[in-house]
């Protein structure tokens, strides 16, 4: 029996790690992984609440979040590859122009 607040705390920690990575990391791939981390934290909160309230809809929403995350990962990584082709860098500080 684990209290709900522990799950929420862990979810918050995961989300905070994601935000932290998003803010301080300068590698675009790492930033992308931070986004995935944030999505995972939210997912954990969803499942914890679903188990707490005995509402299955939460798990269905987790499913949708995963689908969106997968689509986002595919498109985002494609964008990263395109950016790398044109700039030869993965540093977001160097990618400051929309047009070369």
């Amino acid at each position, binding site marked *: 029996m684990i209290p709900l607040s*522990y799950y929420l705390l862990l979810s918050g*920690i995961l989300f905070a790690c994601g935000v*932290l990575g998003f803010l*301080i990391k300068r590698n675009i*791939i790492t930033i992308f992984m931070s986004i*995935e981390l944030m999505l995972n934290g939210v997912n954990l909160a969803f499942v914890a609440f679903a188990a707490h309230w005995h509402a*299955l809809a939460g798990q269905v929403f987790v499913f949708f979040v995963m689908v969106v995350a*997968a689509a986002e990962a*595919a498109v985002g*990584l494609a964008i990263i590859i395109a950016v790398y082709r044109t700039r030869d860098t993965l540093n977001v500080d160097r990618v400051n122009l929309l047009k070369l």
Partner: protein
Amino acid sequence: MAGAINLLVQSHPINSALSLIVVMAALAAEYLLLGAEFVAAVQVIVYAGAIMVLFVITIMLLNAGKEERTKGSRAAILLGVPGVAIGGVLVAWTLLNRPNAEAVPIGALQGDPHAIARLLFHDFLLPFEVTSVLILIAIMGAVVLASRPEGAARGARKDEG
């Protein structure tokens, strides 16, 4: 279990992808603990399987090295760390001030695929179909973006337009 993994993620090397995989696996275990078997399975398959493979392949493809530090990154650290610390303290404070927590029974087993499928295909049918369209668009976008700019990509873009 999870605290150590979080620390692992905090220290991010460039192949922090591996630690991210560990986090995904641990989260799958958490879902199992919460009685959500289906979500746990999907987590392993989609996240640990598909998304992380994408990440690792991209890292290898782009030959990513160490991060470079610039002025902007230092400013981001100065602003970001206190900001996130304040946010985390706020969240923890809110959570700990509201001990509404009855314990979650382990193995309540309310996440069986039967019930989820009923919910997914009856109550959430429209979002489900919209999701399929979203995935289709994502696939097309990824192909268009990642293909070489000359030749093939031009043709694809013309076809779409």
